């Protein structure tokens, strides 16, 4: 078992034992599910909207070179500098260089999963810049030197008391532990940072080819501030986020909000096409867009799993996943957690080290059902398992399955096997749950049913 797999199991043990945590996560996600179901029901035809959203993303991804080219041309025409980065390191270097060239030191960021993916904050801090996360949840976990717990709810795992203590320690006195007071404390600190920041870095949810714009979806308004106050704005964008037409957003924006947070629309959906124009008196004087590959072309080339690039980062699959609900986001130890993470991580960082996430699933299919852009998530997990075996067979497991085949493919052997199980049953009761128990992994927490004396086939045979 790889180091990652061992770590995952350890975390899973820890998290499933933490009943308070399990309850917090479950309550939060169950409420989210209720809101989501209500919003979907308000649609005149959610299945049709979902099918169209899936087809729009499919169209975008399957004509990616055309749309990317048009996007880059059009946004450049509006005064934006477009950069292309094949790898995570290149993207970090490009961004660091931009900041360096401006002679800047203070950077403020709004939420970007892509930024997490390339470990941008760490890279910039190493390069000597001061980087502040402005999204409230991200700001909190940054102070704790932790990774975000969930793409949409970064601080889901924290109680107000913990956050108050954290703020008292890092920011100064806070009147109380009410979410209102805590949020306002963060607001004033971050307001100062915004006004002092020289560079703002954002992610983006979509890039519109037709009109040369990027689109950012948020609720807090910190991305709007990031795109307004600092003199230089940089947007980091995965190449797969393209949409062909501006009006595709008329469908994708409400679909994203509905599936992700159960809202009709998030508070701010903002389109940016360039730096401040002639006649505008605020906004960045320079705007850069960094287009990132980082193995997206590799996923594109995987014909079976290309649809993973449809992902609009709504978090719906995480929200419904019973595994995620019980172990939480940190256990995955990856930028992308939940079902989409389990599908993507092998592509990003190799199958041997990441196949365990595909194995830690019952393939229940709730994720696939929830995905608003119809990514065939749970079947991809099955494919990952198959690919992992093709790459590296476990001789022990292979042996076990071969033995099983001989048991089931010969009716006489199968009969004998059943009889032996019935005979062994009373013995099992003695060793149940102990080190001697061959099915200890099961019997630690669960009983086994008694093996009946007469199996179905026995009954069928005697009937004749």
């Amino acid at each position, binding site marked *: 078992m790889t180091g990652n797999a061992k770590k995952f199991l350890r975390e899973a043990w820890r998290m499933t034992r933490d009943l308070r945590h399990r309850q917090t996560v479950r309550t939060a996600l169950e409420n989210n599910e209720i809101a989501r179901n209500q919003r979907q029901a308000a649609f005149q035809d959610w299945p049709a909207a979902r099918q169209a959203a899936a087809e729009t993303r499919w169209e975008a991804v399957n004509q990616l070179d055309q749309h*990317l080219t048009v996007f880059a041309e059009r946004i450049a025409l509006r005064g934006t500098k477009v950069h292309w980065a094949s790898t995570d390191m290149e993207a970090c270097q490009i961004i660091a260089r931009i900041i360096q060239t401006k002679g800047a030191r203070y950077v403020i960021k709004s939420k970007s999963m892509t930024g997490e993916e390339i470990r941008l904050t760490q890279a910039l801090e190493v390069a000597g810049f001061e980087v502040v996360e402005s999204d*409230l949840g991200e700001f909190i976990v940054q102070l704790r030197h932790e990774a975000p717990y969930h793409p949409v709810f970064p601080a889901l795992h924290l109680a107000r008391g913990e956050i108050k203590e954290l703020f008292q320690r890092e920011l100064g006195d806070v009147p109380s532990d009410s979410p209102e007071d805590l949020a306002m404390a963060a607001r004033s600190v971050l307001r100062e940072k915004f006004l002092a920041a020289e560079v703002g870095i954002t992610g983006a949810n979509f890039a519109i080819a037709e009109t040369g714009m990027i689109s950012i979806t948020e609720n807090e308004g*910190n991305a709007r501030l990031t795109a307004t*106050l600092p003199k230089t704005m940089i947007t980091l964008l995965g190449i797969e986020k393209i949409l062909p037409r501006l009006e595709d957003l008329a469908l994708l924006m409400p679909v994203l909000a509905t599936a992700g947070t159960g809202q009709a629309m998030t508070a701010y*959906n903002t389109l940016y096409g360039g730096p401040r124009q002639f*006649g505008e008196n605020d*906004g960045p004087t320079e705007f850069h867009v960094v*287009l990132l590959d980082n193995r997206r072309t590799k996923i*594109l080339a995987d014909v079976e799993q290309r649809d993973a690039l*449809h992902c609009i980062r709504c978090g719906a699959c995480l929200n419904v996943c019973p595994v995620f609900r019980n172990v939480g986001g940190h256990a995955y130890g990856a930028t992308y957690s939940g079902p989409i993470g389990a599908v993507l991580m092998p592509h990003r960082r190799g199958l041997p080290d990441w196949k365990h996430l595909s194995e830690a699933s019952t393939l229940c299919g709730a994720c696939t059902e929830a995905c608003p852009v119809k990514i065939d998530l749970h079947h991809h997990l099955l494919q990952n398992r198959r690919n992992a075996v093709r790459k590296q067979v476990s001789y022990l497991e292979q042996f076990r399955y071969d033995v099983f085949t001989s048991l089931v493919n010969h009716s006489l052997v199968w009969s004998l096997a059943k009889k032996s199980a019935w005979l062994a049953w009373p013995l099992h009761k003695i060793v149940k749950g102990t080190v001697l128990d061959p099915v200890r992994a099961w019997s630690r927490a669960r009983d086994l049913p008694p093996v009946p004396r007469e199996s179905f086939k026995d009954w069928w045979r005697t009937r004749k």
Partner: protein
Amino acid sequence: MTERENILGRIREALKTKVPRPGLTDEAPPSSLPPVAGARRWLPAVGGHFKDWVELFSRNSLELQVTFQLLSSSDEMRQALLHLRDAEGWKRVASHSGMLPDAICPVLSLIMLHTDRPYDVHDLARCDVGISECDALIAQTGTVVLSSRRAGGRALSILPPHHVVLARRDQLVPNLPEAFELLKTEYGNDYPSMISFITGPSRTDDIERTLVLGPHGPKKLTVLCV
């Protein structure tokens, strides 16, 4: 070869193999309509008349904790603004030049910061309210659509703790597809650098999933429509 060429090259190579459209396995018929035309049919229903749109925008505003007032005259709009000024004790106000602000804001008798002229954001940060026009109001979702060109730049509608929108009733459109059509017609090929779809005040539930308004953007959003 530039990185651009490298990336585009890899994409073209990958796309040599075609992948069928999604949804085939669940027997969903292919989308019969392009996304935006279909969106009219699939998104939540909106009635056919102005009064339905007002009613829906009103209902959505209530849910979003947006204050929405439909007024019958510029005088009523002035009264509404004065009322807010007194209730909230406004000392510093920011706005921009435009048909409605020019007609309505002088009644406040307060020194105004104009964000459509060169200004200092620190001054804007000290303002109690930002008053702007908009491009559209969307009934379907309770959304205000505005741009950096028509709403006094980027910061006016996000920095002060209260954002007041002065709108005209002919700006109320039924749904999202209509709003996008309006933007295309209005701006053609010459889009402003920022267009924002604002649905309610700034909000978060990052702390214990409890709703808090105004973590970064305005805590209050008021829409006055004449």
